[in-house]
């Protein structure tokens, strides 16, 4: 330490002695400290609040998707119209157009006759692996998955009750039970069971599963109703069972158990008219009909790939024949019905899938009493309008082709299993947005003929887009697949399904110039 520094210390120490002495805190210090502490606390708290609010606002601004995640269903919606009922629903949901073929009319009483219209689900109603095949009102298998919602809408026959509410009606998720004998899955707890009238028709809706999903409520509220005229030919005309037009459908034993159905139905194409001759079903007195035409037909395809035609013929018909477009013909057996049918007889037969045919009713003198178109060539893999499922087998393998109905939300899947065990099935191809799954394939063979599976193959595959034709060839046979049956997927590939009378062979895809785009073997 230098002398200067020591002198500085001394001077400063001396000067410090002259500083005022502090014996105690002035009276003003304490309240001022308290005031300042309060102020500091308020500022700190306010700052913390502002920072917190700003942080939350920033997070919300930067992550809007997280906030709207629950409404993810609001992605995109689609509007479809089924039998005059328009409904808007998320595109990833499944809408099934129902018609009378999905319902078991024989189990219904006439006064509760109903017409299934649509089914909307937020899950795939067809899941082979889960054993689920859920189509209201009666084609139900498996269970609704957790979080699953099912909305079923049907039109109700009979006079409209007085005081029935008009559309729109609220969507009260009441959680009540579906009344017995009505709606889908009677007896199952329902989130909604409501009725209303719209444009002169009574409707009934049931929501099963999760009725609290806002999307199901939104879809319900989106429905509009345009007239009572069915938009799709073949739909029943709801009304009193004692109405003017009736058809009896009969299925013969070689296609399964004999079934006699009585339902009110209007098929202008078939020219049925009422002749005032009542026919009474012995055990079910509500079924009465009198066709004035000698023959009535009903076409069915129960998912086995066959074209079945069945119906009644009148007393004037001596015999019934199926005239094929290639000039051949074959007789169609007639089965007697109970006496109450007053001489009507029933028939059931198959038509070839690769040929058009005509059902001809011949009189006693051989004259043609009636000729009804029995349908043209149909796809090998036929898919019911109701959404399920064609099935075929080749070399022990089992295939399912499942699709939602045309005109609605579409999804097609092709399942494969080494045997009939559905639990081991796996999806080998799928497509969505298919405009018309009934045109999936157009082949000139019938792989579904009884006993043919062991010697035939169904070929499913993907070929590059731009394929103009696909050829299946093997064991001396060849099949050309029409591009009309191709399904263009969004992944730049075209899905095809074909069948051939061969257990192995080659599949080739050609471009419009005939050059091979892709080639592979099957079997």
């Amino acid at each position, binding site marked *: 330490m*230098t*002398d*200067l*520094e020591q*002198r*500085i*210390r001394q*001077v*400063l*120490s001396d*000067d*410090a002695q*002259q*500083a*005022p*002495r*502090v*014996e*105690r*805190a*002035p009276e*003003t*210090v*304490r309240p*001022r*400290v*308290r*005031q*300042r*502490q309060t*102020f*500091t*606390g308020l500022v*700190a708290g306010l700052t913390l609040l502002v920072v917190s609010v700003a942080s939350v606002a920033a997070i919300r601004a930067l992550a809007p998707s997280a906030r709207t995640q629950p409404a993810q269903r609001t992605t995109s919606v689609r509007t479809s119209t089924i039998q005059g009922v328009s409904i808007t629903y998320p595109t990833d949901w499944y809408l099934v157009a129902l018609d009378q073929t999905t319902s078991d009319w024989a189990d219904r009483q006439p006064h509760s006759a109903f017409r299934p219209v649509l089914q909307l689900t937020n899950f795939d109603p067809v899941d082979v692996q889960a054993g689920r095949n859920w189509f209201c009102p009666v084609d139900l298998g498996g269970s609704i998955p957790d979080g699953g919602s099912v909305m079923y809408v049907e039109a109700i026959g009979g006079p409209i009750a007085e005081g029935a509410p008009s559309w729109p009606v609220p969507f009260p998720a009441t959680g009540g039970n579906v009344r017995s004998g009505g709606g889908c899955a009677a007896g199952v707890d329902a989130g909604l069971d409501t009725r209303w009238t719209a444009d002169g028709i009574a409707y009934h809706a049931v929501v099963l599963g999760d009725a609290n999903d806002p999307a199901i409520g939104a879809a319900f509220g989106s429905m509009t109703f345009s007239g009572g005229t069915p938009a799709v030919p073949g739909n029943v005309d709801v009304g009193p069972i004692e109405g003017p037009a009736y058809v009896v459908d009969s299925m013969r034993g070689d296609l399964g158990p004999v079934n006699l159905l009585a339902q009110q139905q209007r098929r202008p194409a078939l020219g049925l008219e009422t002749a005032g001759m009542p026919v009474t079903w012995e055990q079910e007195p509500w079924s009465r009909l009198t066709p004035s035409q000698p023959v009535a037909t009903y076409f069915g395809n129960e998912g086995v790939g066959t074209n079945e035609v069945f119906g009644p013929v009148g007393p004037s018909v001596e015999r019934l024949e199926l005239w094929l477009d290639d000039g051949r013909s074959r007789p169609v057996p007639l089965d007697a019905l109970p006496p109450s049918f007053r001489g009507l007889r029933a028939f059931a037969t198959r038509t070839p899938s690769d040929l058009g045919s005509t059902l001809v009713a011949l009189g006693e003198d051989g004259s043609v009493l009636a000729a009804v178109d029995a349908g043209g060539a149909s796809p090998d893999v036929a898919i019911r309008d109701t959404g399920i499922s064609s099935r075929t087998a080749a070399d022990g393998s089992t295939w399912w082709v499942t699709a939602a109905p045309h005109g609605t939300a579409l999804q097609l899947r092709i399942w494969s299993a080494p045997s009939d065990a559905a639990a081991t099935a796996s999806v080998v191809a799928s497509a969505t947005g298919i405009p018309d799954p009934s045109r999936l394939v157009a082949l000139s063979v019938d792989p579904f003929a009884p006993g043919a599976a062991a010697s035939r193959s169904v070929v499913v595959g993907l070929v590059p887009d731009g394929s103009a034709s696909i050829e299946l060839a093997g064991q001396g046979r060849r099949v050309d697949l029409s591009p009309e049956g191709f399904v263009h997927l969004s992944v730049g590939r075209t899905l095809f399904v074909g069948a051939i009378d061969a257990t192995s062979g080659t599949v080739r895809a050609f471009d419009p110039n005939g050059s091979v785009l892709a080639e592979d073997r099957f079997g």
Partner: protein
Amino acid sequence: MKEREQDTGFDGPRSGSLEDLYVRHAPDAVRLAFLLTRDAALSEDIAQEAFIRVAGRFRHLRSTGAFDAYLRRTVVNLCMSHHRHEKVARTYVRREVERTGGREPSTAPPDVETSDELRAALGALPDRQRAAVVLRFYADLSEQDVADALHCSVTAARSLVFRAMETLRSTIGGEDR
């Protein structure tokens, strides 16, 4: 418990602790302010204001054990601020005197014996240099603590002390290293 509260200074609204804290720290603060301002009344005011400011945010101080350091820095800041205001006022007065042709009042620090050459030289030092000298040789702080009190780097604090010492040597003519 009492000992612990005294160790950490003021803890909560107990008036006794606040009184103790003031009596313990205020004298040093007053002396520091007096050496920097040469004004007894002003030094009391500055020390009191500094105490209120530091104690008012005492709960928010990062280190409650460093109350002395916080208080010292606040005292220095207030003194520097006072000098700046005083300088502005003196400049204004000088200009007014020059404009009116009057005589500028004496700016010599009051209450200080001006006959002592060193004391006068200390008083003539720039404010920050004088503060650095006071903190370094009266408060006996390290260069780091001086820098903390003056809000500057250690190098800057060392430079302030060095330049002040050079000024003092040249003023009093002493050369006694």
